[in-house]
């Protein structure tokens, strides 16, 4: 099962990147990067940015059956997920919760890479779950 989760900061640089299996990492990064344009496009449309936003790109490559989902928080932090299954809403919720826990840590400066082990665990859990 291929999956990749990336947390992208407001300024569109990655805060956290994790992917399985690892040989697709580079490809995932590329996908995620290109998907950022779509995110911006949709956010520019000004629709319901506050709530869960799903960005469904559908089949990006016909040869590979994964979808790229996006989710943007109210502070313009984006979670982009490359999955090949579709229970994304829940995953994004969990991600978001975990991310807020990271933010609660006063030693975490927004904009730093996320090095929280709790967050890692959450992501791992989701990867395992989905995969």
């Amino acid at each position, binding site marked *: 099962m291929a999956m990749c989760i990336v947390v992208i900061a407001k300024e569109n640089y990655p805060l956290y990147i994790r992917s399985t299996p690892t040989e697709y990492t580079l490809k995932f990064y590329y996908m995620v990067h290109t998907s950022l344009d779509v995110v911006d496009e949709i956010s520019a449309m000004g629709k319901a940015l506050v709530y869960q936003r799903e960005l469904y790109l559908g089949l990006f490559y016909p040869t590979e059956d994964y979808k790229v989902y996006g989710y943007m928080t109210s502070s313009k932090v984006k979670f982009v997920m490359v999955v090949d299954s579709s229970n994304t809403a829940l995953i994004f919720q969990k991600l978001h919760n975990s991310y*807020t*826990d990271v*933010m*609660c*840590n*006063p*030693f*975490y400066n927004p904009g730093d890479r996320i*090095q*929280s*082990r*709790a967050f890692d665990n959450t992501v791992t859990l989701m990867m395992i779950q989905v995969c």
Partner: protein
Amino acid sequence: MEASAGGGCGAGPPLLLSDGEQQCYSELFARCAGTVSGGPGSGPPEAARVAPGTTTTAAAGPVADLFRASQLPSETLHQITELCGAKRAGYFGPTQFYVALKLIAAAQSGLPVRTESIKCELPLPRFVMSKSDGERRIGNPAELLGTKVQIPYLTTEKNSFKRMDDEDKQQETQSPTMSPLASPPSSPPHYQRVSLSHGYSKLRSSTEQMHPAPYEARQPLGQSEGPSSGGPGSKPLRRQASLIRSFSVERELQDNSSNYLDEPWRITEEQREYYVNQFRSLQPDPSSFISGSVAKNFFTKSKLSIPELSYIWELSDADCDGALTLPEFCAAFHLIVARKNGYPLPEGLPPTLQPEYLQAAFPKPKWECALFDSYSESMSANQQPRDLNRMEKTSVKDMADFPAPTQDVTGDDKQALKSTGNEALSKDVSEDPATAKDCTSLKARPRSRSYSSTSIEEAMKRGEDPPTPPPRPQKTHSRAASLDLNKVFQPSVPAVNSGLLPPPPALPPRPYPSQSEPVSEGDLHPQLNRAPSQAAESSPAKKDAPHAQPPSKPIRRKFRPENQSTENQEPSTGGTASAATVKPHPTVHKQSSKQKKAIQTAIRKNKEANAVLARLNSELQQQLKEVHQERIALENQLEQLRPVTVL
């Protein structure tokens, strides 16, 4: 767990141990290993050979103690730990332990810490307990109990005490993380506890006199425990264990002045008190919580790296709300202290640091606080001399010192403390008037200053400061207010305090007794004097008026300066001021209200002082004028004398 010599080492070479080494290492290992292996019961060298298959792991705590007892620098110890594979494996298995011991021996022999070093024949590693493990000079308590032991006793006791608690709790080793220290079985606790109490009483006395007591106590106990433990082999082991602990603790003391931070992530009473104290310094209400930013500033003073602090926060803030309640704070603080003492952070929050556990175990922060308040000064003096290294370590150490007395009293209760929490706590606190606690609080305050940054200390000091400023300005400005008027009237004089002119008018109304009198009266006096024509009538009236109507003073003053601008310049201001003081007196007597009389008395005094100062000021200003004139004259001369070479 791989017992094969080479396997455990990871990258290390096959571990070849001589017999002596085998014996030594296995004993040490058995000592360090916890209840999993059955403790020193299996200590005897033969059994402790740690046959394969035994999933014994040495708890990191005693191992760390042992390593520190080897008197190697911590850097070396870290290297050794890494090399032996314990870091990788996350625990000290027999192989890792043996490799580590060999590396210690190598380091002590001066060889570099490398895996190659252990290939050669090495002497046995030496540990600072005035007896080397290698030689196994067990039967000599006298050697062991040197002066070196004295200090460690205090800490030792704590550690051993904590260990006892762990045993009682029967904490099993948690897999890769540092397991709570599993110490030898029950018999050591007895003697440890007793010596613990001795140690604590020693702490309390903070003298050396007590040292012999634990010293002696230890000896017979040590001997008695031998038989009780059921084996000659175990006796030395245990004694060594306690001594090792003591020495390692001593090292800790010397290095970090933290003694309770032993393995078990368990907060002792004194630690708890200290943490609560610190909590209260940050947040007076123990049932409330500390915000993230406040906690961040506080913990940043511990000089740990931000990622580590971030991780500690993550561990301790169980509800992830960005704020720390008291138990969370204690857990975080404990982790920080542990980290400062070199203990690697656990993967997860140890059960003993869970908020629920902490709340159950130490549910009484409130009356600790009350005790703190009541016992303020007593121990602080005692604690002063016990200044140890730095930061929270020192304060923690002190804190540890303080509670020593309490624990001394409740030595045996300590056992119950952990389990029952409340009652022991109450005993502790009630029995030993928390001189300790308050010392802690007091000590903690100055200690935290050593955080080398603006701490809560300074905030508190600052908090105390505001009340004082008002008097201070009085010395200068309030009286100078009248002088300022003088200066105002003397345009030639650089009016340094001219800025005060605006303030004085505002002052009299409010701080009437303090500032207003000198200010207003000072003004009034010259005013009255300078306007003799008006003074005759107005002075009494004004005298009465000021007393009766403070707010009107500024108004009057404003009038006066206009009228008396020239007159004020005279140095006679002082004289007139003094003369003016006479006038108010009769008028004062006319006042019937006692308040006015009191106020006038104060006014009088202030006037007198003001007059003196005014006189002084006028004299100085006259001098200043003269000097100015001289200067001008000199400059003129210079101009004349200087050859005209402009440009």
